[in-house]
């Protein structure tokens, strides 16, 4: 416990940098295409549900 293993220190440096690089990427703004994609998927699903309910008023 009192002994600092050199490999541990190296691993810590690597993980610190990994997390930094990764969080930079995570914090990038989300391109609009993904909001559009989710909307399209929801719309398609709603369309299917409506068709299945066969004319039932969903609004």
């Amino acid at each position, binding site marked *: 416990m*009192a002994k*600092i293993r*050199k490999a541990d220190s190296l691993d810590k440096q*690597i993980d610190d940098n*990994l997390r930094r690089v990764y969080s930079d990427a*995570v914090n990038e703004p*989300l391109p609009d*295409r993904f909001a559009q994609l*989710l909307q399209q*998927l929801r719309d398609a699903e709603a369309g299917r549900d409506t068709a299945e309910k066969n004319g039932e008023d969903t609004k």
Partner: protein
Amino acid sequence: MTDIQDPKDELVEHLPAMRAFAQSLTRNSAAADDLVQDAVVKAWGNFDKFQVGTNMRAWLFTITRNTFYSQYRKRRREIEDPDGALAGQLSEKPAHDGRLVMSDFRTAFDQLSDEQREVLILVGAEGFSYEDAAEMCGCAVGTIKSRTNRARKRLAELMHLDEDEALEMTDAATLAVVKGSTAA
């Protein structure tokens, strides 16, 4: 509409992490976004298989990496145009202040194998347990552990950060601690 919250509503919260993971796999932003899009469509079509209460990020990451290995890895060899200036030489040794030079770190990371980059993101950056990572990658826990160790080691080599050098940086602290402990 009035029933319990749709788990699909949670998907959007994981998209930034899925993109970051996809970027580390594809090493190309355009390909990463295509990969995420494909993974989202697949997830959407399989949401009935998602078990509510389990880790959605792990589920989505599994779909993302499976899509990458089944479709993108092959395609990438044809494009071979990573935007990380992949083949560039590492500029110089990192500064001796314990911080690695960021651009060098990214360049070194991009030179790791697909499996090595994957495991470092899952375990090192996202903080998944070895057990979770093993389940996501469809391999044994021991494989994940050894792959993580090898990936860290390879990264250190690419960064010209060998263990002696790390020791050099922590020399004073190590000596102080060792001296202190032998006295006890």
